[in-house]
């Protein structure tokens, strides 16, 4: 299977047929939605929760509105803490910068904390190939996915779709684990295996949950302790962040932290929250000798110029939208063909990859709004996706969108003309009725060739009545309605009694 967004349709058709996986994922999502909903009650009732989300949205608005200033402030304060800040315009430059650090510090082994941005820029693959280093993922789910060589299923739960049997099989095959389906034994084996590698790591690489501008600190959130290890044991720590991860101060950061963990795993707070303020100081016994932050743009500043697309940078990567999305839950991560599946991918992939390649991402959406109804950072997923559709229709130079073809456009032109002209509209209804009803059996049409055939894959369509509502209104409904209403108004008690029987 070639996992690229261009292949969305064919991959989705394969994935959706995996009924057992589908039912399992829908069930797991139900559990997580329940946990998250319950965790959100810490803020109070529904309206208090809305306020908490609105406050989160406001913090993100402030961060984005002052992005350049906050990033500069962060750099100044990080430098003061002894953290070196490097800037990368795109994935290639980011990878080269990290490669430079690997060479400078003569690194052989790298341990990693789970980081979406490192996946986005393809860092593991690049470093293993170009710098000849060994890289070990520290997050259990990410480690399993790394061994299996597939895309993470969910940004927070990378292996959440896998059964314990599948996980045991992967670990048996790749790291010689004696086969067991007991979760604690699996975790214990992987822990021993990874600790051995981690002890030898020269460099730790992580992402960043939030970079706090006022103090030049990094906040990292996790449950397994691997990030704590990766950021404190190796000689060098390299943290990767995309430009939008900056936050003004700790008050803002802690509010977002509360929303992040509650909407991510349904926890009030995760087992570990690390706040890093620089490399090891003279009097300290732990910590890296050198610490770097690589701030990566990778297409974001172009989106930032567009008032609507700027919104796509609000995301704090809690992943809540994914477990709300009826489409993602049925097809999984593979069809999205990239590391951000579900609503996040629909919103972010088009600005980073381009509108043509990602077309199915923003079109395979019913606009149900489940995603944005729970988003703690105030993202308007639907506006953004509709905007992409519009950009695609018109063609867009910035994001590689080719204008849609005339054939596709003409159908909508005809529809629009029908909306303008009641005569045409009525004629259109008449033609459609003749076309549909000739295939009708017992009041329903059960199949049809051509562009409408998709509808009939799993459902029928009722035949169109001989008279439209408008004709019925003219012929009898208008008069009936007038008489009924007159009776009801003139004799309300009689009408009421009559109705009460």
């Amino acid at each position, binding site marked *: 299977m070639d996992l690229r967004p261009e292949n969305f349709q064919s991959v*989705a058709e394969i994935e*959706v*047929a995996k009924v057992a996986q*589908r039912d399992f994922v*829908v069930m797991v999502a*139900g559990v997580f939605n329940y946990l998250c909903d319950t965790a959100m009650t810490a803020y109070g009732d529904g309206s208090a929760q809305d306020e908490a989300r609105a406050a989160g949205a406001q913090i993100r608005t402030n961060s984005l509105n002052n992005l350049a200033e906050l990033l500069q402030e962060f750099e100044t304060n990080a430098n003061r803490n002894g953290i070196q800040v490097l800037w990368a315009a795109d994935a290639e430059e980011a990878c080269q910068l990290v490669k430079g650090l690997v060479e400078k510090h003569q690194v052989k082994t790298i341990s990693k904390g789970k980081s979406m941005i490192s996946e986005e820029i393809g860092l593991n693959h690049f470093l293993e190939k170009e710098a000849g280093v060994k890289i070990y993922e520290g997050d259990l789910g990410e480690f399993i996915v790394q061994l299996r060589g597939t895309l993470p299923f969910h940004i927070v739960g990378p292996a959440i779709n896998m059964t314990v049997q599948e996980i045991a099989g992967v670990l048996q095959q790749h790291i010689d684990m004696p086969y067991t389906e007991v979760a604690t034994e699996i975790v214990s084996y992987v822990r021993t295996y990874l600790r051995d590698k981690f002890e030898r790591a020269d460099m730790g690489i992580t992402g960043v949950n939030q970079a706090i501008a006022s103090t030049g600190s990094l906040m990292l959130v996790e449950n397994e302790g691997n990030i704590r290890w990766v950021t404190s044991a190796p000689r060098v720590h390299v943290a990767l962040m995309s430009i939008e991860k900056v936050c003004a101060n700790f008050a803002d950061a802690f509010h977002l932290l509360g929303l992040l963990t509650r909407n991510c795993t349904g926890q009030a707070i995760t087992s570990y929250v690390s706040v890093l303020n620089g490399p090891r100081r003279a009097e300290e016994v732990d910590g890296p000798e050198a610490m770097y932050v690589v701030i990566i743009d990778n297409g974001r500043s172009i989106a930032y110029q567009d008032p609507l697309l700027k919104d796509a940078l609000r995301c704090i990567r809690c992943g809540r939208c994914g477990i709300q999305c*009826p*489409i993602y839950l*049925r*097809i999984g991560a593979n069809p999205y063909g990239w590391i951000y599946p579900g609503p996040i991918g629909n919103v972010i992939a088009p600005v980073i990859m381009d509108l043509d390649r990602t077309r199915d991402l923003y079109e*395979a*959406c*019913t*606009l*149900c709004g*489940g995603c944005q109804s729970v988003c703690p950072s105030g993202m308007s997923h639907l506006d953004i996706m*509709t905007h992409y*559709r*519009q*950009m695609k*229709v018109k063609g867009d130079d910035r994001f590689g969108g080719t204008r849609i073809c005339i054939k596709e*456009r003409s159908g*909508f*032109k005809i*529809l*629009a003309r029908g*909306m*303008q*002209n*009641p005569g045409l*509209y009525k004629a259109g*209804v008449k033609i*459609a009725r003749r076309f549909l009803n000739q295939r009708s059996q017992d009041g329903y049409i*059960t199949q049809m060739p051509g562009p*409408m055939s*998709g*509808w009939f*894959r*799993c*459902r*029928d369509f*009722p035949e*169109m*009545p001989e*008279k*439209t*509502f*408008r004709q*019925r209104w003219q012929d009898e*409904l208008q008069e009936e*309605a*007038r008489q*009924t*209403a007159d009776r*009801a108004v003139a004799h*309300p*008690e009689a009408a009421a009694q009559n*109705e*009460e*029987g």
Partner: protein
Amino acid sequence: MKPGNGLLAKRSDLMSKVSLFIPCAVDAVLVSVGESTVRLLARLGFDLQYHEEQTCCGQPVITAGHLDLARDAACRFISIFEEDEVVVSPSGSCVSTIRHDYPRLFEDEPEWQRRAVELGQRVYELSEFLVDVAHIEDVNAHFSGKLAYHKSCHLLRALGIDHQPQTLLKNVHGAELVPMQDDHVCCGFGGQFSIKYPYISEAIVGDKVKNFLASEADLLVLSDPGCLLNIRGYLHRNHPGRQVKHLAEVLAESV
């Protein structure tokens, strides 16, 4: 609330006039939904008006991204309805188009935008109108059996309409409103989506129907023509005899 005299007396003259916005899918296919809407509102004493020149609100064109094509249709729609005090429609989805999408079509034309916003404030979905505007919670409808309610996406999340249809259903004489798993989750219609991604749509509507059957309700009720076409078509193919109806169809059946 007591039906009859009490509720009729409460309405002002202004509110007794109702202009009907009948979506194209109802006009051409789901005619009984339009008919039920008329019978229900007439029975409650509303003076109904129907502008025969209305066509379609343009939602399919807007969601597909052809905003330029939708603009003229929106101007026409606004011109037809803007003199009306109250416009009522048996479709949450189409009401959401007028209320939320129209103003955005006119970002560069403040005068049209103002007209769109003002009209949007007076266009109501049927249950929203009955409960929030006319303050009618019991329409004297009758149904013997259990009802399940599907919370259509645009109704629930775009318009924030949730308790209104459920209140009306709870007050249906002889009926019991029963809970349904994932009642707030999309049915997989999504307009063009259902045709372009039929296999995904099938998986979603399949789960919706599974939850309906598990609820042991006799009838599934909803208030959007799109979901109705989708679920009705799926039931007819896969579970013949099982019923889904529009809220208006249920409420129009009087005691």
